[in-house]
C-alpha cells in the first residue's frame, strides 16, 4: 500500500459510517435499519484494518470479534423481527409503539 492511502481510507471509513447513520435516521423499515447497522460495523472494520498496518495484527483480531458480534446481532435481531412481525403484521417502526405509553 502506498503511504498516502492512509487518509483516503480513513475518510472512506468515515463516509460509509455516515451513510449508515443517514440510512438509520431516514428509513422506517426495521430490516433496512438493521442493514444500516451492518454498514456502520463494516466501516469500523475498515478503520481497524488500515490502522493494523501501523499497530500490528491486533487490529485484524478485533475485526474478527466485530464480525462475530455482528453475526450474533444479526441472528438475534432477525429473530426479534420475526417475533415482531408475527405480533404486529408490520415492520414499520412508526407502527411499533408498544412502549410509547
Amino acid at each position, binding site marked *: *500500500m502506498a*503511504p498516502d*492511502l*492512509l*487518509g*483516503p*481510507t*480513513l*475518510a*472512506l471509513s*468515515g*463516509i*460509509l*459510517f*455516515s*451513510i449508515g*447513520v443517514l*440510512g438509520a*435516521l*431516514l*428509513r*422506517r423499515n426495521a*430490516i*433496512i435499519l*438493521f*442493514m*444500516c447497522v*451492518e*454498514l456502520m460495523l*463494516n466501516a469500523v*472494520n*475498515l478503520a481497524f*484494518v*488500515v490502522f*493494523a498496518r*501501523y*499497530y*500490528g*495484527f*491486533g487490529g485484524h*483480531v478485533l*475485526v*474478527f*470479534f466485530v*464480525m*462475530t*458480534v*455482528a*453475526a*450474533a446481532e*444479526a*441472528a*438475534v435481531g*432477525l*429473530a426479534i423481527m*420475526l*417475533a415482531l412481525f*408475527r405480533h404486529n403484521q408490520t*415492520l*414499520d417502526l412508526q407502527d411499533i409503539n408498544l412502549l410509547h405509553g
Partner: protein
Amino acid sequence: MHIVFWIFFASAVVSAAMCILRRNPVSAAMWLVSTMFSLAGIFVIMDAPFLAAIQVLVYAGAVMVLFLFVIMLLNLDVTASDVRGSLSIGGAVAVTGLLIVELGALWVYTPDRLAQELLPAGATTFPGGIPADAMSGNIVLDVAKPLFDAYLIPFEATSVLLLAAVVGAVVLAKRRI
C-alpha cells in the same frame, strides 16, 4: 494499485448510497453485498487478504443470506415509501452532513502525522507494532498468533456470546417452546 483502490472506493460509496435509497429491501440487501465486496477488495490492498476472504464468506455469504431469507420469509409490502417525514429528513441530513465533514477531514491524515501525534519524540516505530516487512508471509499465521495468544480470553468469550445468541434466536423465533 492506486487506480484499483479508487475503483473500489467509488464502488463502496455508490453501493452504500444505493443501499439506503432503494425502497425494496431485497435490492437494498444486494447493494449492501456489493459494498461488502468492495470493502473486501480494499482489505486485500491493505495487506489483509485473509480478512477479505472472511468478509466475503461470513458477511456477504452468511449474514446477508440470513437477511435475504428473513426479508423473503416475511414478504413485506414495498409499494409505499418508508422514508420518514420532511422534518426528520432535514434533521437526518444535517446530522449526517456534519458527521461527513468531521470524519472526511481524516482525508489529510498521513502516516508521518500519525507517528508525530502518537509516538514519543525520537521514536521512529510504533510501540508493539509490526512493520509490513516483518510479516511472516503466512497470512493465516499472522492473524492466528495474536488471536490464540494475547486475545485468547476475548476469543473464548465470543464463543459464549455465540452460544447465547443461538439460544436467544431460537427462544425468540419459536412459537411454542
